[in-house]
């Protein structure tokens, strides 16, 4: 446990001391503020726009940071040969990955809280009512980040940062349109195509479980069952991705 904590702490320090991350964070907070102010100026002064743009910014920047930082997580260790120092000590390779993942998740959790506070604080400041649904939407974005971070960690165990980033963004866009594949599978004639489309739907990430942003701006609140499903899907799917990453990393030579 001491080892995992040490690796996680080291990864956390590495990511928060990274200047690029600070730049993205400042940009994110500025954009959240700008989007809300812009919403105020828009015709009809619709509260929905203010809520919607801010939430989208919180989610979008979380995704960008998870993918940008996550894809270089393992590669950087290889490139700088720091991995030699760690893996020649009595450190189990899976524990190394757990540490890296927990370190980055700690950073992302902190950033989500900061961006969320900036967003909600501004809403309160502007006198916009803050409903439970808004908190839920931010929590769901965080659950999505767990899946994306584990996925980028998996890609980074066998691929270059640029390719990992492409894979991760592709999966992100697929994940938000997963229902389309389900519909296609249902409409396809029985046979190979139906099987393949069905398999895609099951194996690839379904990120629509975490997307309640468009509804909460209309005052929607997710029920207990939906929250439970989102948590369970995030944890189980991430665990599956992590197991594949651990097997690949265990077999890897340096």
């Amino acid at each position, binding site marked *: 446990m001491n*080892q995992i904590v040490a690796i996680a702490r080291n990864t956390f320090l*590495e990511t928060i001391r990274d200047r690029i991350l600070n730049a993205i964070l400042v940009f994110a907070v500025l954009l959240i503020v700008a989007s809300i102010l812009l919403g105020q100026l828009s015709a009809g002064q619709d509260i929905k726009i203010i809520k919607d743009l801010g939430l989208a910014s919180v989610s979008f920047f979380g995704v960008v940071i998870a993918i940008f930082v996550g894809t270089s997580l393992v590669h950087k260790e290889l490139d700088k040969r720091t991995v030699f*120092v760690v*893996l*020649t*000590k009595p450190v189990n390779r899976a524990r190394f990955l757990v540490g890296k993942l927990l370190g980055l998740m700690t950073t992302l959790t902190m950033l989500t809280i900061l961006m969320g506070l900036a967003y909600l604080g501004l809403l309160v400041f502007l006198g916009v009512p803050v409903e439970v649904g808004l908190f839920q939407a931010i929590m769901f974005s965080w659950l999505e980040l767990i899946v994306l971070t584990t996925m980028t960690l998996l890609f980074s165990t066998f691929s270059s940062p640029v390719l990992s980033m492409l894979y991760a963004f592709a999966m992100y866009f697929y994940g938000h349109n997963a229902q389309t594949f389900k519909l296609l599978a249902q409409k396809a004639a029985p046979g190979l195509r139906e099987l393949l489309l069905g398999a895609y739907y099951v194996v690839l990430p379904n990120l629509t479980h975490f997307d309640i942003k468009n509804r909460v701006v209309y005052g929607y609140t997710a029920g207990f069952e939906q929250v439970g499903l989102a948590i369970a899907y995030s944890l189980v799917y991430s665990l599956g991705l992590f197991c594949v990453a651990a097997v690949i990393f265990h077999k890897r*030579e340096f």
Partner: protein
Amino acid sequence: MMDDWIVEAVGLTKVYTSFPRKRVTTLDNVSFKVRRGETFGLLGPNGAGKTTSQKLFLGLLRPSSGSVRVLGGEPDDPEVRARVGFLPENPYFYTYLTGREFLEFCAALFDMRGAAKHQRIDELLMLVGMSSAAETQLRRYSKGMLQRIGIAQALINDPELIFLDEPTSGLDPLGHKQIGRIIKTLKAEGKTLFFNSHIMVDVEELCDQVAILHKGRLVASGTVGALTGDGRESLEDVFVRTIEEAEAIGR
């Protein structure tokens, strides 16, 4: 009395295969042994297979054929690793950490805690002459300082066997001297040292046994005295002659 072999390589071969069917043999049927307490130098020109050998002894690579035993066990066995230290070539550590933070991180990987951990770190900082730079971030360290903090991390667990990959290459004369002094201290403490180098003066001064690799093959091995005819020839001359002979017969 039975020999106490601490590193054993038998028929060690490493072949890299890449697409479509390209095979590159970086080590070819190499066998040698290192005794406890010895300082062993693995020599060879660039690309001879020295780093590949060390990576096989450290479990970072797996042999294509042949076998490796370190401290009587498998190199990737955590119990073996707990007794081994390693300084990589041109080490690039976590640059945003201070020297002390970096050693604390390494100590945590060995599950070291509390007062014993802090005492060990202070001892090592003293040994490598880095106490005054302990609170400075590694990105501000010179190459010699990085090498010295690298030796400190390799010794954090008080290892029986220490692998050093090109420990003196690229250092200025002062840095070179300091590293040499640390290695001599370790030797005097009875540690087994295994180092890769192509700096003959260092090897001649520090090593008991040497092996010369050329294009992945072992072309000579023995005590420094035996190879140099008890000093009649310099190790550098022996090395150059051996490599030229190996080239001439096409090995």
